[in-house]
């Protein structure tokens, strides 16, 4: 083996290699670093060769994981060396050691620029590569024109141009404005005619980035991509050097098909036909061959083609072929293909409506859940989760449960969460749901989060039919020799509440229940003991006639814990002891827990949060949102002002273990998202739940039972529970007689539809109203999907649009009856006449047993008539200056902004189709955005927005909005303000203090009538 040209480097590497352990290695490295430092210090004696050698040593040491900051300067200085070998090392090592924010990099910017515009093409390549790898904004601004010139220059050789393409890609990512869309799109199209495949490969990567951001501007590139793909697929004019195992550059084929996936459709029929021919050939013509590399390469192309077909094939010409292929793949022996088959099936679920065909492969997918490879098991789990619906939930969830006992630890938490969610969403009956959750706790208690057992308690509490069943089950689990602590908690809780329902069964007398629970007490932690004490107190209360022996036993326990060091336990012990000696008062205070308000599952929220990471998973979430289900997930519904009907207030508290310190003197208010509540000590709480004392020092010194009724209508001082997320907090429930509860939060759905163009507008147990919208300039076309979820027809269906004055809306005929399980589509045409934030309302009603009427806001909101447009500094400033002041340019200081980083704000803006133009404002704390507004009166009108933030106080900012029309400026300003101030999801801020209680009869109506909610919102 020939040694490297640099002997000293080779010796050092050998030394490191001979080190017996990490410690020796560290010593050797330290010695070398000392040496290098000394040599660098006396730089005079250093030859360029030596410098080069030391810099390589540094890179090697850095690779081993040691810090070499002291040498950055030396690496950077080599960039300026006159000779290629030194310069090259300088460039390569600098781009490995430094990042774009390093100050040293600035020192080199001039040399780099000179190398780029110089005539030495090897220097050009080095400089372009460095900028391509670590160039920052500063580089983008000063170098972009030069780099563009090189890329399109006809005198430049391909070896320079291919690097210029990727260099430009980097600069574009750092500052999108460096590529001027108008001028560049034609050039980009020309670049795609390139014969040299190296240049074409790089240019295709550049194109992917450009179209991903703005496909509209690059339509002209679409046919060129198809041509390039044809050339490759037919192997025309492909040099041997670019074929890989007989396949014309598979990487370029893949990249080209990736670029095509960013165009929403292909309108030109000829282009479309050509492309589909190629795709068809790839789909049909890819055979399994012996050579591994060839096989991989051809399947790389095949999988990309599948992705492209899924994206484009709205007519489903080739979709069944795709599913068939994937079905084949998930059953082959080759693990890579199996993995990819499962992964792509999951993707397919998201883009198209092929669930039924995929279900045919369920058995095979379940087999994959037991694959020896964790990567494949994960894919299978994701796919099963995605394909689960009412029809197969039982099978899938039971498989997941079975798998849980043998699953890797790494997967158990995810597995339990997913099983719990599916059980909840698709339960055919509630007892099955209870079974599943209890099994889950039994098999994987360590991985079952509190949310999961809180949720099952919530369901049991809210469903009387379920209570005896749950109690029996809980009792059964207690017989097992060793049970998980979470099981102790949940069974103790359920038995405390409902064991009296079992009293006649063998083994279920209060005494027996007590002793079997008490057996567990020595094994549990301090967080569980308070629950057990509550259970004892409840058992005692239910023991009628009283059993002095049991009473003495329990009192002895209370007394024992009166001096417990844990404040929570101590307090409960003291209070329960005092209460239980008061006789009659106990009955009221220890009464059964009231029903929980229907609210969105914390689990699903949690799953959504944890899944927000990757694009793939967020698509899953999207699907979950769109799914029609008979989900048990019901969101809380309340008046917009967050005030619950006070007459119904019951002060109760969750089985939360939080030790939040509440001052009992605090007179707070109920929380908007349904969390409550602590008892005000002064008028002693009437129907206080026994668990409410969890929250702190409350004097529940017994009020006489007679107080209960009379105090019902008082407005008790309450205060919010700060840890609202995980607590199964309880809000007051109105008596929802005769009304239908919507599923999901209507306001949240509306908010979500403000940002996307399809989704569910409204859902209740009988109907689901979906929406799909297309917007073009000032016009829109919405389709309402009215889906009857029942097995019997919905009658007297009526839909009336109440448009605000600025929208012209025309709804097509809505049928009077929707047949069972049918979906009716009703197109709705929208024309925007002038700028306004008013919102159209759909007044919808139907008859199913009762008459249901809802008023729903339609997402034909201001931002739908915006088209993002990004402006350059040259366009922006003259315009900004010409709109000099009110009424065309308005400024306002906005306070009470919900704090967010600038990046978050930019994202928020982008989501409303206001494009943030980075780099226009020299102040990094400011943000400049632009957009075009369309309406009949204004036509297309450019709007400019500037936000100045104060990094020291994120809750306020100054906003300036300008456009050529006063109303537009005002409306847009108000619109943006609403977005910045309000929290689009559920607000957690304290609501205003409750008004005097409305008459009890009207309260439930106000609560359940979305129309009433709207009254507060539409102004």
């Amino acid at each position, binding site marked *: 083996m020939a*040694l490297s040209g640099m002997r000293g480097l080779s010796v050092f590497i050998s030394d490191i290699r001979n080190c017996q352990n990490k410690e020796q290695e560290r010593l050797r490295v330290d010695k070398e670093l000392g040496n290098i430092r000394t040599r660098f210090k006396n730089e005079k004696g250093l030859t360029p060769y030596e410098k080069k050698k030391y810099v390589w040593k540094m890179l090697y040491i850095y690779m081993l994981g040691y810090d070499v900051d002291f040498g950055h300067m030396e690496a950077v200085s080599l960039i300026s060396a006159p000779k*290629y070998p030194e310069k090259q090392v300088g460039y390569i090592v600098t781009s490995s050691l430094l990042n774009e924010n390093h100050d040293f990099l600035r020192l080199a910017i001039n040399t780099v620029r000179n190398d780029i515009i110089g005539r030495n093409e090897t220097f050009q390549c080095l400089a372009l590569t460095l900028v*391509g790898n670590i160039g920052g904004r500063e580089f983008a601004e000063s170098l972009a024109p030069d780099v563009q010139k090189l890329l399109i220059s006809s005198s430049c050789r391909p070896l320079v141009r291919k690097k210029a393409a990727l260099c430009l890609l980097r600069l574009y990512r750092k500052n999108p404005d460096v590529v001027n869309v108008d001028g560049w799109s034609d050039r980009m199209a020309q670049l795609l005619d390139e014969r040299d495949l190296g240049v074409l490969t790089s240019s295709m990567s550049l194109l992917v980035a450009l179209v991903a951001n703005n496909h509209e501007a690059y339509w002209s590139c679409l046919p060129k991509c198809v041509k390039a793909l044809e050339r490759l697929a037919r192997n025309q004019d492909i040099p041997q050097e670019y074929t890989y195992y007989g396949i014309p550059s598979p990487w370029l084929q893949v*990249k080209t098909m990736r670029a095509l996936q960013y165009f929403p459709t292909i309108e030109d029929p000829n282009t479309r036909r050509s492309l589909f021919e190629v795709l068809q050939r790839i789909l049909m013509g890819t055979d399994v061959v012996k050579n591994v590399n060839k096989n*991989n390469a051809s399947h790389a192309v095949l999988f990309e083609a599948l992705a492209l077909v899924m994206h484009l094939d709205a007519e489903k010409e080739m979709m069944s072929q795709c599913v068939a292929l994937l079905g084949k793949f998930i059953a082959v022996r080759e693990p890579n293909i199996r*993995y990819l088959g499962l992964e792509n099936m999951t993707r397919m679920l998201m883009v198209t409506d092929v669930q039924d065909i995929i279900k045919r492969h369920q058995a095979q997918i379940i087999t994959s859940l037991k694959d020896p490879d964790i990567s494949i098991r994960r894919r299978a789990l994701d796919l099963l989760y995605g394909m689960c619906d009412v029809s197969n939930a039982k099978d899938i969830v039971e498989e997941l449960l079975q798998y849980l006992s043998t699953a890797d630890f790494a997967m158990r938490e995810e597995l339990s969460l997913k099983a719990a969610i599916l059980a909840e969403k698709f339960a055919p009956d509630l007892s099955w749901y209870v079974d599943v959750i209890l099994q889950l706790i039994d098999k994987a208690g360590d991985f079952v989060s509190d949310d999961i057992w809180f949720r099952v308690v919530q369901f049991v509490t809210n469903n009387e039919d379920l209570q005896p069943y749950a109690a029996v089950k809980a009792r059964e689990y207690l017989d097992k020799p060793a049970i998980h602590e979470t099981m102790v908690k949940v069974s103790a809780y359920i038995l405390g509440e409902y064991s009296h329902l079992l009293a006649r069964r063998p083994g279920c007398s209060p005494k027996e229940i007590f002793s079997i629970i008490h057996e567990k007490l020595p094994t549990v932690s301090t967080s569980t003991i308070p629950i057990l004490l509550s259970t004892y107190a409840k058992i005692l209360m239910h023991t009628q006639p009283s059993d002095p022996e049991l009473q003495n036993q329990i009192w002895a326990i209370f007394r024992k814990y009166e001096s417990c060091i844990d404040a929570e336990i101590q307090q409960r012990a003291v209070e329960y002891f005092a209460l239980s000696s008061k006789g009659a008062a106990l009955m009221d205070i220890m009464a059964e827990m009231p029903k929980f308000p229907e609210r969105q599952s914390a689990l699903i929220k949690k799953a959504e949060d944890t899944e927000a*990471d990757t694009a793939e998973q967020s698509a899953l979430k999207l699907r979950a949102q769109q799914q029609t289900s008979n989900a048990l997930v019901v969101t809380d519904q309340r008046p917009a002002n967050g005030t619950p009907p006070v007459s119904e207030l019951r002060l109760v508290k969750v089985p939360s273990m939080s030790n939040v310190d509440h001052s009992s003197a605090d007179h707070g208010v109920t929380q908007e998202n349904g969390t409550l509540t602590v008892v005000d000590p002064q008028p002693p709480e009437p129907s206080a739940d026994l668990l409410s004392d969890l929250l702190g020092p409350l004097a529940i010194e017994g009020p006489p039972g007679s107080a209960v009724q009379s105090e019902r209508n008082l407005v008790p001082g309450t205060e919010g529970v700060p840890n609202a997320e995980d607590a199964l907090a309880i809000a007051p429930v109105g008596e929802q007689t005769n009304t239908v509860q919507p599923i999901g939060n209507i306001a949240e759905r509306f908010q979500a539809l403000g940002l996307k163009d399809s989704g569910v507008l409204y859902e209740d147990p009988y109907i689901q109203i979906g929406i799909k919208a297309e917007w073009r300039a000032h016009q829109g076309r919405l389709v309402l999907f009215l889906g009857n979820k029942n097995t019997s027809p919905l009658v007297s269906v009526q839909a009336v649009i109440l448009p605000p004055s600025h929208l012209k809306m025309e709804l097509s005929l809505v049928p009077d009856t929707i047949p069972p399980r049918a979906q009716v589509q009703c197109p709705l045409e929208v024309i925007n006449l002038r700028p306004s934030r008013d919102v159209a309302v759909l007044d919808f009603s139907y008859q199913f047993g009762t008459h249901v009427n809802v008023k729903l806001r339609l997402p034909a909101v201001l931002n739908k008539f915006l088209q993002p447009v990004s402006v350059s500094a040259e366009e922006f400033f003259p315009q900004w200056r010409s709109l000099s002041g009110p009424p065309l340019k308005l400024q306002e200081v906005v306070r009470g902004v919900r704090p967010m980083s600038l990046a978050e704000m930019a994202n928020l803006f982008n989501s409303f189709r206001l494009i943030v133009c980075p780099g226009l404002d020299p102040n990094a704390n400011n943000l400049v955005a632009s957009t075009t507004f369309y309406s009949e009166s204004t036509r297309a009108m450019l709007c400019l927005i500037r936000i100045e933030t104060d990094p020291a106080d994120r809750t306020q900012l100054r906003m300036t909005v300008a456009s050529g029309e006063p109303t537009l400026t005002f409306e847009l300003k108000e619109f943006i303000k609403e977005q910045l101030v309000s929290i689009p999801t559920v607000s957690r801020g304290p609501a205003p203090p409750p008004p005097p209680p409305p008459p009890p009869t009207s309260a439930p109506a106000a609560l359940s009538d979305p129309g009433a909610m709207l009254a507060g919102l539409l102004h």
Partner: protein
Amino acid sequence: MGIRFILMVNKQGQTRLAQYYEYLTIEERRALEGEIVRKCLARNEQQCSFVEHRNYKIVYRRYASLFFLVGVDNDENELAILEFIHLLVETMDRHFGNVCELDIMFHLEKAHFMLEEMVMNGCIVETSKSNILAPIQLMDKAS
């Protein structure tokens, strides 16, 4: 963004080459490499070549004592990356002749030159072996 990093690690878990296309601090690198190497080296021949780790997908391939690990985004074409690894190995093989771990170790700079010609900013620049090797051969001749 495509390729986020390329690692070459031997059976003992020693890093022989590391090239990142996004900036990580030295501590982050050490932690990441440790986790990935532990995960990938524990896998056997019957398992697939893809491992999910944090937000990355690792596409890896083993050649004798040396593992090539490429970290990519979740939506990257896995098989294309897998064959890109092979192209890299074939290119090194053409240059060194029967390339082995020691070649890469003692000719770290050559390995870097080749990578520099093949990948830039996380994207593939060149896939023709003769184009990749041309600058290196020029240099060898000159010295």
